């Protein structure tokens, strides 16, 4: 299908997609850099272009709770937040996932205090990784648009029924402009379908939501989340494929790869950094260096097997992280390493901390990472400790 290409702000691209998916209920609370999305949606609703219930919330905790209640009542529900707001939602998102409420949430990634900052990194959504919610990380405004169009179908699938976070880096993706192809609302609405809940709050069939568990069932409900995330893998693959068939765009399903086939060094990363790496890989390839890229698109469900497969026989994997688990290192790197445990092919996996708190990651930095990684065979080369890119060592003297 042919769309219309326009120069759009990333937030606007998201709002366009959300509008066309026609959520029944939207509830949001302002936080930089998510605000443009909610402002666009508020305008759509007040001008009548979108017929949603738009609820101003008194906090992110309430915003998440409002969409929780709406979803339990059988409505398609949407919210968005960032950083401190996402942390405030943490408790609600746990309950939302376990109660199997398929809310879609745009997480505009921003670092966590202190010091307070509005710079982007992935610490906020990483703090939600164990909630049971799905996480899709996008690399461009176009992918942000595409992923939102796909999101409700995935989350609301009767075999999935989980909250879904579309994660996009603050500023780089939310506030920058890029050509984005958008499709007619009717086509998107048709693709997104409507929510058919398997159960809901309904006086005709009075169910009890949020019941109290003894030791006999809590583990079972957590395990059910494991199964649902496995189902989500299939669903994400089928929905992204269908989207490609209809709209001609494909941004990857669980992962996306670039120049991995014969690569000797493979960089693994998430979010907007992936676009930078893509460009750097092309330049390095032109110089004859065998470098490749794996974009981790779904951090939850985690595509461990897909990553291993895409790595093939590559001897060196460099994982770039924008989040930190203090005292153990980059979170993506830790999960990649865990995936390789017991695998017959054992590449050297090198963790890099790059872009924490918005620290610049440009092509030069990427090439530096490749250079450092390729020295890992040397005596002085890196072994397994995290390499902190751009860290000011003078700071600690």
């Amino acid at each position: 299908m042919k769309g219309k290409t326009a120069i759009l702000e990333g937030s606007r691209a998201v709002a366009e997609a959300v509008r066309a998916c026609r959520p029944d209920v939207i509830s949001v609370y302002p936080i930089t850099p998510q605000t443009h999305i909610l402002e666009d949606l508020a305008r759509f609703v007040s001008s009548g272009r979108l017929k949603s219930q738009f609820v101003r919330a008194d906090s992110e905790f309430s915003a998440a709770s409002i969409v929780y209640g709406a979803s339990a009542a059988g409505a398609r529900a949407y919210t968005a937040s960032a950083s401190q707001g996402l942390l405030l939602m943490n408790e609600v998102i746990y309950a939302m996932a376990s109660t199997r409420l398929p809310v879609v949430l745009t997480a505009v990634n921003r670092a966590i205090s202190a010091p307070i900052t509005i710079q982007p990194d992935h610490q906020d959504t990483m703090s939600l990784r164990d909630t049971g919610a799905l996480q899709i990380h996008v690399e461009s405004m176009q992918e942000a648009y595409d992923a939102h169009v796909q999101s409700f179908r995935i989350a609301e699938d009767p075999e999935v029924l989980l909250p879904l976070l579309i994660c996009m880096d603050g500023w780089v993706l939310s506030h920058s402009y890029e050509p984005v192809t958008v499709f007619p609302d009717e086509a998107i609405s048709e693709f997104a379908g409507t929510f058919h809940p398997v159960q809901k709050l309904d006086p005709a069939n009075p169910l009890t939501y949020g019941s109290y568990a003894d030791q006999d069932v809590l583990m079972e409900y957590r395990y059910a989340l494991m199964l649902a995330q496995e189902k989500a893998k299939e669903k994400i693959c089928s929905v992204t494929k269908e989207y490609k068939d209809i709209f001609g765009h494909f941004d990857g399903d669980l992962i996306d790869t670039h120049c991995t086939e014969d690569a000797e060094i493979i960089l693994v990363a998430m979010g907007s950094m992936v676009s930078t790496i893509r460009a750097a890989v092309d330049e390095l390839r032109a110089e004859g260096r065998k470098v490749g890229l794996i974009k981790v698109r779904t951090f939850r469900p985690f595509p461990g097997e897909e990553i291993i497969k895409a790595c093939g026989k590559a001897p060196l994997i460099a994982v770039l992280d924008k989040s930190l688990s203090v005292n153990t290192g980059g979170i993506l790197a830790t999960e990649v390493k865990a995936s390789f445990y017991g695998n017959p092919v054992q590449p050297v996996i090198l963790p890099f901390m790059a872009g924490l708190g918005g620290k610049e990651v440009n092509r030069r930095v990427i090439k530096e990472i490749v250079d450092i990684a390729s020295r890992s065979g040397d005596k002085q080369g890196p072994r397994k400790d995290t390499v902190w890119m751009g860290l000011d060592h003078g700071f600690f003297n």
Partner: protein
Amino acid sequence: MDLLLGGVCKAGESKRLETGKWRSFRPVVDRNRCIKCGKCADLCPDSCMEIKEDGAEVNLYYCKGCLICMRECPVKAITKEVEEK
């Protein structure tokens, strides 16, 4: 599995729990005194009092023996007895 998705449960399944086992006193209704005003039925936290033709009847399957009925009966038609276990 008898359980629904996401910790959701069916309505009214509490009715199989025999809370009457908790009782240490049992209310006894003197049907000759009972004026069938329904006060005990309204105030029973466990909905154990039913007003029948000839007066209030205690549902001992659920009655926890709180004795609010005894205390609130306007004509003192309810007394207590120690529960024999």
